[in-house]
C-alpha cells in the first residue's frame, strides 16, 4: 500500500516512516511543507496520505487545506489528518464532500500502533477514522432529552465506536460481544434516531456522523 507522509517535525516524520514501513506500507514520499504535499499527492497518487494539520510555510491549518484541495482534484483520495487538537470545524470540512476515505485523529493515537495502523488501512479502503474526542464532543452537544438521550448506555457505546468508523467486527471485539449482538444494537440505534439503515458500512457511518453534526434540537 503506497502512502505519502506530510509532517514538518523530523522526529515525528521519521517515527511515522518507521512505523508504517514496519507494517508493510510503502512510504513513497515524506514531505514537510504544504506546497510539497500538494505536489507529492499529484505526482504519486498514493493509496493514502497521512498529513499533519499544521505545516509550513504558514504553520496554520495548511495540511488540512492542501488535503481538501487535493480531494477536490482527486475525489475520494484517502487522507488521514493528524493533529495535536481536534476541531469540529475541521472534521466538518473534511467530511463535507461525503466521499469517505477520510480520517481525523489526535497525534496521541499513534502511540497505540495497532489501532493506528488499522485506522490508516480503513481510510485507505474508503472508510472513516474519526477520533474518539471528535465523537464525544459531538455527543456532548446533544441534550439528554433528545433522541440521543433515549439510547441505552450500551447503545451509546456502540454508537460512539461506529461513528469513529469501526466495523461491526471491530466493535464486537472491543466490547466482547458477538457481531450479531452489535448488529441488533445498531438496528435499535438507527430506529431511535430515525435514520434509514444501510447495508453499506461506510454509508451507515456517514449517516450517523451527519446526524451528530446536525444542529441539535
Amino acid at each position, binding site marked *: 500500500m503506497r502512502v505519502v507522509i506530510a509532517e514538518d517535525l523530523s522526529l515525528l516524520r521519521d517515527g511515522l516512516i518507521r512505523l508504517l514501513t514496519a507494517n508493510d506500507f510503502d512510504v513513497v514520499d515524506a514531505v514537510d511543507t504544504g506546497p510539497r504535499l500538494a505536489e507529492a499527492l499529484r505526482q504519486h497518487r498514493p493509496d493514502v496520505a497521512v498529513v499533519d494539520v*499544521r505545516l509550513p510555510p504558514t504553520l*496554520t*491549518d495548511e495540511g488540512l487545506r492542501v488535503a481538501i484541495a487535493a480531494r477536490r482534484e482527486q475525489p475520494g483520495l484517502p487522507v488521514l489528518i493528524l493533529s*495535536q*487538537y481536534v*476541531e*469540529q*470545524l*475541521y472534521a*466538518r470540512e473534511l467530511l463535507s464532500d461525503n466521499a469517505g476515505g477520510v480520517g481525523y485523529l*489526535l*497525534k*496521541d493515537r499513534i*502511540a*497505540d500502533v495497532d489501532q493506528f495502523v488499522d485506522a490508516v488501512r480503513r481510510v485507505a479502503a474508503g472508510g472513516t477514522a474519526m477520533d474518539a474526542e471528535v465523537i464525544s*464532543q459531538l455527543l*456532548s*452537544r*446533544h*441534550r439528554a432529552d433528545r433522541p440521543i438521550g433515549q439510547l441505552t448506555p450500551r447503545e451509546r457505546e456502540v454508537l460512539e465506536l461506529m461513528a469513529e468508523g469501526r466495523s461491526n467486527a471491530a466493535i464486537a471485539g472491543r466490547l466482547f460481544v458477538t457481531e450479531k449482538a452489535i448488529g441488533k444494537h445498531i438496528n435499535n440505534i438507527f430506529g431511535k434516531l430515525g435514520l434509514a439503515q444501510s447495508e453499506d458500512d461506510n454509508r451507515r457511518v456517514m449517516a450517523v456522523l451527519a446526524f451528530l453534526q446536525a*444542529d*441539535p*434540537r
Partner: protein
Amino acid sequence: MTEQVPASAVGPGSRLGLRQGGRALAGLGLNLFTGFVGLFFLLMAGIGLVTAIAGVGLPILYEALLGIRRLTRLQRRWAGQLSGRPLASPYVGGLDRGMFASLRAAALDPATWRDIGWLALQPLVALALGLVPLALLISAYSIFDSAMGNGPAQDMLGLVLISALVAATWWLLPWLTAAQCAFSRWLLSPSSRTELTERVSQLFASRADAVDAQSVELRRIERDLHDGAQARLVALAMDLGLAEKAIDENPAIAKQLVSASRASAQQALADLRGLVRGIHPPVLADRGLAGAIEAAALLCPVPIRLDIIIPARPEPPVESALYFAAAEALTNLAKHSDATRGWIRLRYLDGALRLVIGDDGRGGAALQPAGTDDSGGLAGIGRRLAAFDGRLEVVSPVGGPTEVIMELPCASSSPKT
C-alpha cells in the same frame, strides 16, 4: 467617524418639522432665561467675593456657585438634547464636601472659570440670536399691519413678503440653534485638558487591571503545568526507569510499566492541549476570529445562527480578547439560558468591532450577580475588554431575550487592500 444623531436633534440641514421648530424656538427663549438668571448669579457671586473679607460673603459665594452649577447643568442638558450630542460634565469634583473644601476645589477647577466666562457672555449671545427671528417676525407683522387691506395688488405683495419672512425665520432657526449649542459646548463641556486627565486616570485603572489579570493568568499557567504535564512526565520517567531495571528478570512487569508510561504520556498531552487551548486556541491562529467563533459555536448545544462580516483580521490581541469573550458568552448561553436558539453577529463599524451574542432563553443575566464578588465570567470579559478601551453591555430582561454586546475599538480591521 460619523456620529449618530437622533432624529429629534435640530441642526443645520435638518428638515424642521413643527415639533422641532417649536423646540428650537423654545430653546432660544430658554437661552434668554438662562442668560439673565446667570447674570443674577454672577452678581451674587461678585457680592459674595467682595464681602468675603468680612466672612459673611462665603456662604453667599457658595450658594451662588451651587446655583451656577445647577444652571449650567440645565443648559448642558438642553444643548445636548437639541444638538443630539450630549455635553459631559467638566468638573473635577462636586460641591458636596463642605463649604470651605468645595469653594477651594471650585476655585482650582478651570471649569468654574469657564462657567463664569459663559455667564458673562450668555446674555449677549442669547439676545443676539433671539433677536434675529424676533426682528424678522416683527417686520412680517408690521407689513401685515400697515400694508394689508389697501387693494388686491398690495395685499398680494404683502402676502408674498410675509411668507418670505416667515420662511426665512423657519430656515434660520436650525442655524441659530446650532450656533447656540456650539457656544454652550465651547465653554461648558470639558476642556481638552480635563478630558485628558479623565482619560489618563481611566487608562491607569485599566492598565492596572490588565497587569493584574496577566499575572494571575501566568500563575494559573505555571500551576497547571506543575500539577499537570510536569507531574505526569515525572511519573512517566519513573515508570520507564523501573521498566528498564525489570526488563531482564521480569519482562511481564516491565511491559506493564511501559504501558503505564504510555498512559502517562497521553495524559500529559491531553493536559498540555487543554492548557494551550486556554492560552491561544490554534483555530484562532488558523482561521482568525470569524473561523474561531464559528468553531466555538459548533460546540454549543444550542443551534447558533452566525452573521459575521469583518473586512480583515484585527490585530492578534484584539482577536484573542474577543474570542475569549465570545467563548465565555457561549458557555453561559449553554449553561444558564435554556434557550432554543442563539445568534452571533459581528461587524466592523466606525473603527470598532461590535460583537453581539444573543439567545431566546430565560434572561436575567447580570454582570455582577448580587451578593457575589465580580469574579464571574462576564465581569472577567468586562475587565479584559476595558484593557483595550472596549465596552461590555448585557441586555437581559427577566424572561429574555439576552444579548451580550461587546465593542472594541480596532483600527487595523479596516480594509487593507
